[in-house]
């Protein structure tokens, strides 16, 4: 349809122009623009909260290195291509980490000594946020007044208090979690983490001053956006943030299995104290 312009235009035609312009504006308004947050509205639990129940898992290379990295050989050459590090785009917003100079040096040393130092090798609970993107699933059980987050790796667990915030009685590996809802986002404030856990296998580390604020936001029926704001003034010059999607395990029979890894770590931790050397399972002979 062509609208005539100029003198001969009827009043009716003017209204048509106004109406079409208005419809155009309306349709623009409902289309999401790239700058806006996704307008996904999550299914509800019976008490009206966003339903985050499910078994979730990260699908990225952050556990190797949270920063952008090319693929590189693993630390045990006999494992060859099977256990080398896949390349990853990184999950840190802005890419790099704002280490203090001495802290950056310690990360490099950690990486060099990772076979001795990485707490994952010893089957130690991985803390927050690393537990989230270890290559194992975890489960959210959304209770009333609490949210349980159970991790397959090392059977680690957190029970997030959703009531009035409480103070940690002591530092711990998995920290002390107080949560609240911000719209559809579960926001968890994690404090009292000890200084024994790392961010990744690359030796990225933190102190016991670590304070993590996590956000779990549904972005589709089978995905959450995970964000962790990291504050640790002893190690970093400023706050920084990591973010990544988490995906629902969609297998019909998906369930957390046991990864009680103590027995897999005993030889590396205590093998030097054996009566007889273990035969046939050495790492490089």
């Amino acid at each position, binding site marked *: 349809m062509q609208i005539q312009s100029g003198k001969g235009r009827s009043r009716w035609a003017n209204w048509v122009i106004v109406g079409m312009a208005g419809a155009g504006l309306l349709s623009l308004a409902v289309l999401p623009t790239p700058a806006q947050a996704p307008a996904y509205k999550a299914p509800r639990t019976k008490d009206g909260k966003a339903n985050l129940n499910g078994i979730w898992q990260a699908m990225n290379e952050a556990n190797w290195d949270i920063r952008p990295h090319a693929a590189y050989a693993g630390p045990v050459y006999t494992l060859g291509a099977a256990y080398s590090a896949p390349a990853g785009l990184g999950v840190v917003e802005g890419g790099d980490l704002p280490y203090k100079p001495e802290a950056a040096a310690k990360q490099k040393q950690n990486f060099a000594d990772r076979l001795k130092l990485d707490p994952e090798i010893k089957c130690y609970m991985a803390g927050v946020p690393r537990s989230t993107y270890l290559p194992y699933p975890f489960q959210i*059980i959304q209770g*009333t007044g609490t949210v349980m987050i159970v991790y397959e790796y090392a059977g680690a667990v957190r029970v997030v208090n959703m009531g009035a915030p409480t103070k940690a*009685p002591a530092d711990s590996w998995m920290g002390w979690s107080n949560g609240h809802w911000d719209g559809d986002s579960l926001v968890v404030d994690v404090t009292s983490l000890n200084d024994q856990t790392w961010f990744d296998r690359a030796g990225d580390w933190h102190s016991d001053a670590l304070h993590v604020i996590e956000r779990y936001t549904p972005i589709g029926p089978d995905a959450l956006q995970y964000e962790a704001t990291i504050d640790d003034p002893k190690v970093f010059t400023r706050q920084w943030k990591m973010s990544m999607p988490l995906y629902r395990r969609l297998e019909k029979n998906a369930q957390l299995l046991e990864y009680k890894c103590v027995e897999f770590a005993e030889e590396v931790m205590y093998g030097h104290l054996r009566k007889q050397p273990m035969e046939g399972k050495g790492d490089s002979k």
Partner: protein
Amino acid sequence: MRRQNLTTLFALAAVTMLSSVVSAQSQVNAKPAPPAKAWTMPRTPDGKPDLQGVYSNAQTIPVARPAYLGAKEFYTDETDKEASAKAAPAGRGGRGGPARAGVAANPEGGLAVHYDNSQFGLGGSSITRAASLRTSIITGPEGRVPPLTPAAQKLLADRRAYQQVHQWDSAQNRPLAERCITWGFEGPPMMPVGYNSTLEIVQGKGYVGIVQEMIHDTRVIPTDGRPHGPAEIKRWMGDSVGHWEGDTLVVETVNYNPLVMVQGGPLSDAAKVTERFTRVDANTVQYQFTVDDPKTWVKPFSGEYNMVHIDGPVYEYACHEGNYGMANNLSGERATEKKK
């Protein structure tokens, strides 16, 4: 002391302080009497009985009934209970009576408790325990775990003979509890331990989660009607599925790791444990269980105790992370060998 974990010790002290505040709570007996005032079952938003909260499953009663009580399954009242404790033959239930839950929890008389609880202020009244007029956790006229089958006895004897020679050879030769793999009390069936008998229940859609402080083990129990997992996958805490029967959560567990021991018996691939959780008043969840493993015991046995609500929290028990005792024990043994 075999294992030291300072964090845990501080946590224990904190538990003690918290627990003493609520230790005077009196609980319903194993035979629930009608509550004094009207109580309605609290429900989760999806209508299921609300079992959520932090509980102590520490007990005033032993697992097995002391022999001198014969077939007596219940005390008539608290007076009878105290009188019975006083009248107990020497060496049976003396020194504090049958309330020494840590000792009671281990029928083998082994190292269920390797700390002196009094050292940490954990003895007696400092722990919240559900009151009970039962004479033992194991129910029925015998009130004790039935005899092992000959096959199970042989299996245990073989293991013991091996252990006598090789127990200090490597970390892998140490008991599962010392290795921080499982204490055997996490169950199912879940049994009181000498300390840290604290658990928290969280209910979400289609699942019940139970975290037990000892040794931060978490049970994730599906209640969505799914069957058990593949029998090839054996698990330290078994493979549990649950369903609701009226207001009772019923959980069935199979597929145990063959190294798991329950009450002195090695669970076989035929083991099936059934648990029933019923909230009976504002502060109490009644816990019942039946262990059926025809390869290990000559007949099934059942037990029952109450869990009592406490303020919590459940502390993080970083058992393996703090297991300095493992390296110390082994290096001590290697040093001893050099001297020989």
